[in-house]
């Protein structure tokens, strides 16, 4: 439970900063999954059975050889373990922190089956990767130069992973990103308590230390950068631009003060010099049922909001947020309300209340009932999904995303795409890493083959 230490602002109405003391905020935002001590790592590693054709490997979108790296930890070579991890997933450090392991590798662990207590794969991965990254060691070197030049648009996990693999193969890479800082959602989206101590920034720096990658910030495709120019200037183009657009509720007063996108709230929080600078309401309502909704709700609570409700229009079983995340929200004091849909925003210059109608899902499908209720709200965060913000002639779209084949190749010549912006796969950091890497392999094969 985030404790609310005495501060005169704890019960202040409206949207204010520093509801909690700086110490309290620091405590609330400390590492969600604390690093393992060497002793803990040894005990945790000892539990791995070194399964044959291990289900955890299959469950990992980047197919890290988990039994091997855990064995390398238990035999006293965490550095070798880190190499095993980075070979498959160069952002293994971030993934160790942010992957919903409870629905990926750890769910597949045979000890989950046997004892409902999987090997702590995520934390062991962090133990190994931290060891190498903290020492400033980069385990890979570049192959001889191929003189091929590749443009990567988007410096998120997909773009970074793609760029690294290409650089490793000896290609020269230029990454363009519309923002002023690289990292994508690792830097602007992931919950603050999952990636403490500027880890995202340090990881980008470490990743780029392979060499051969130039980063150009403030370059946005469709604004000051055109795809056809990249196509003619470079040997290949990879698009890893994520989902920059946000969905709207379609209600009146949506632009009233206090009505914000959850991703923007989180981005501001992640970039704030001090947590005491971040404004938060006394009563906060988050609309949505995914990871973003949970992260916004939990962080609102940790910032000192007195009442935080997360309202989702369908049943709990349909929520995209995993059970672990739902429990985390509940444990932090977030009130989760399901089967309710917003039907009105009551504002008076700034948001005052949100009106919801209960929903039902029966034999004839989903329907909104007449029964309504209202929640007090100084702030409403919308977390109802992001969408692709790109429109290029000839670039096929499928399900709202760039259509790609199994290697990430789009409908346009020399253009690959991966991560959230591309069709297929879950919208997760680790999936973006896998798709970026695989596209790089395909680009390499096509350019050299």
């Amino acid at each position, binding site marked *: 439970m985030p404790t609310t230490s005495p501060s005169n602002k704890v019960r202040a109405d409206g949207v204010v900063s520093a509801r909690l003391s700086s110490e309290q905020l620091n405590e609330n935002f400390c590492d969600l999954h604390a690093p393992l001590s060497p002793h803990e790592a040894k005990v945790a590693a000892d539990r791995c059975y*070194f399964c044959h054709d291990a289900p955890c490997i299959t469950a990992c979108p980047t197919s890290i050889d988990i*039994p091997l790296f855990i064995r*390398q930890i238990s035999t006293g070579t965490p550095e*070798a373990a880190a190499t095993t991890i980075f070979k498959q997933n160069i952002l293994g450090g971030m993934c160790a922190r942010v992957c919903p392991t409870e629905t990926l590798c750890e769910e597949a662990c045979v000890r989950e089956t046997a004892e409902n207590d999987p090997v702590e794969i995520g934390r062991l991965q962090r133990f190994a990767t931290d060891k190498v990254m903290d020492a400033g060691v980069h385990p890979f070197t570049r192959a001889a130069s191929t003189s091929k030049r590749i443009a990567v648009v988007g410096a998120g996990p997909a773009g970074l992973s793609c760029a690294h693999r290409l650089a490793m193969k000896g290609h020269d890479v230029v990454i363009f990103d519309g923002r002023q800082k690289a990292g994508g959602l690792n830097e602007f989206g992931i919950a603050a308590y999952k990636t403490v101590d500027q880890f995202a920034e340090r990881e980008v720096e470490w990743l780029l230390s392979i060499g051969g990658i130039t980063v150009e910030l403030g370059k946005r495709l469709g604004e000051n950068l055109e795809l056809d120019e990249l196509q003619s200037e470079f040997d290949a183009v990879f698009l890893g631009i994520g989902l920059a657009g946000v969905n709207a509720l379609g209600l009146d007063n949506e632009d009233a003060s206090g009505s914000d996108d959850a991703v923007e709230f989180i981005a501001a929080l992640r970039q704030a010099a001090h947590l005491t600078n971040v404004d938060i309401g006394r009563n906060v309502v988050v609309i949505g049922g995914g990871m973003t909704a949970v992260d916004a709700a939990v962080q609102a609570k940790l910032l000192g909001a007195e009442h935080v409700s997360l309202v989702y229009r369908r049943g709990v079983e349909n929520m995209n947020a995993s059970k672990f995340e739902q429990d985390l929200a509940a444990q932090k004091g977030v009130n989760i309300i399901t089967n309710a849909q917003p039907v009105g925003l009551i504002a008076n210059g700034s948001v005052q209340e949100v009106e919801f109608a209960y929903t039902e899902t029966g034999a004839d499908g989903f329907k909104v009932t007449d029964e309504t209720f209202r929640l007090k709200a100084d702030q409403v965060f919308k977390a109802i999904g992001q969408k692709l913000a790109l429109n290029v002639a000839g670039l096929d779209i499928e399900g709202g995303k760039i259509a790609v084949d199994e290697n990430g190749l789009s409908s346009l010549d020399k253009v690959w795409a991966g991560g959230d912006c591309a069709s297929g796969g879950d919208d997760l950091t680790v999936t973006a890493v896998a798709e970026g890497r695989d596209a790089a392999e395909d680009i390499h094969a096509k350019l050299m083959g």
Partner: protein
Amino acid sequence: MANLQSNFLGIKSTNPFWLASAPPTDKEYNVRRAFEAGWGGVVWKTLGSEGPPVVNVNGPRYGAVYGADRRLLGLNNIELITDRDLYTNLEEIKRVKADYPDRAVIVSIMVPCEEEAWKAILPLVEDTGADGIELNFGCPHGMSERGMGAAVGQVPEYIEMVTRWCKQYYSKPVIVKLTPNITDIRKPAAAAKRGGADAVSLINTINSITSVNLDSMSPEPSIDGKGTHGGYCGPAVKPIAMSMVSEIARNPETADLPISGIGGVTTWRDAAEFMALGCGNVQVCTAAMTYGFKIVQEMISGLEQWMDEKGYTSIDEFVGMAVPNTTDWQYLNLNYIAKAKIDQDLCISCGRCFAACEDTSHQAISMTPDRKFEVIDAECVACNLCVNVCPVEGCISMEEMDAGKTDPRTGKVVEDQYANWTTHPNNPAAMEPAE
């Protein structure tokens, strides 16, 4: 960068990790997969003479000893040599060797202790193109009753004689595999050397009964209500194997005899330890049988990392490095004085060190009502038991006392000089300093 390339008796392999003669190397299918997984070499499952092959039991062959969490620490088996036709094996060996020229393929052989039997099989083996042979003088069950295996390995004269035949009728390296079921391992090793062996390998399995079924009142593995002793292997036998290896490496008579280390090798560290004690390479059976062929990947990466950390570029640079430091008890420095020290930050207050010391050692650990444990230097004899029973690695350590300090236990000043039992005043046979 460390290079794991191994050259044992002139036999080259991509790394010093060979699979020992046993089920993992019983047939082409296994051996090909083992090579694909990264093993540097194999010693083919022991071949017998031409004719109907031996038969194995059709019930359980293995018994096991477990550690916590059912970790397999020791395995025992009552399997015999290959139960497949000689010519089938020979054809497979030939094919595999041709396809994997950079890996070592050694053929293990066990035929009756008669010159004709060896003379008959050796040319057939030579024809496979394999890199060498290993004489199985070690199997402790089933074959020894027929005058083979350990029955030969326990009689140095037989070893010498058979080795000599092999050197006579076979052109490539001959490795003699030793049984540990003997009082003094130096004797068979010396006999092998006299017979002209190029190397010895050890250990084969140790006579054992792993458990007794208390319902059927028969040893496990129980075959229709009866059991027999089997051969013990796996992590549990490593200390015995390493001691035997060191005896051979230290014996002036056999000091220059190459050794292939076998017995409980499970991780890169086990391998490095065997090699430090003088083994040019290692052989592995139980670890592969427990975890599959893939286990070699950890051995490779771990050994590479360790060699890089230590600055070794090739394996010859550390083989045998621990031999000069393996000595007899009487030459240990009695002026070296240490005290146990408990790291209070790491201590989890389980009290196991206290129980061990208080009940079975020197009452040198104090315990407070709030479970704080501390070493009493005035009582500590530095026996190491507390370190060994502590569940937290690194929590209790042995700290050397600097010369000039007074040992509170004896009231004597710690001396700078090396002094051992041979010159100690309490030794009735004390003499002038030796070694």
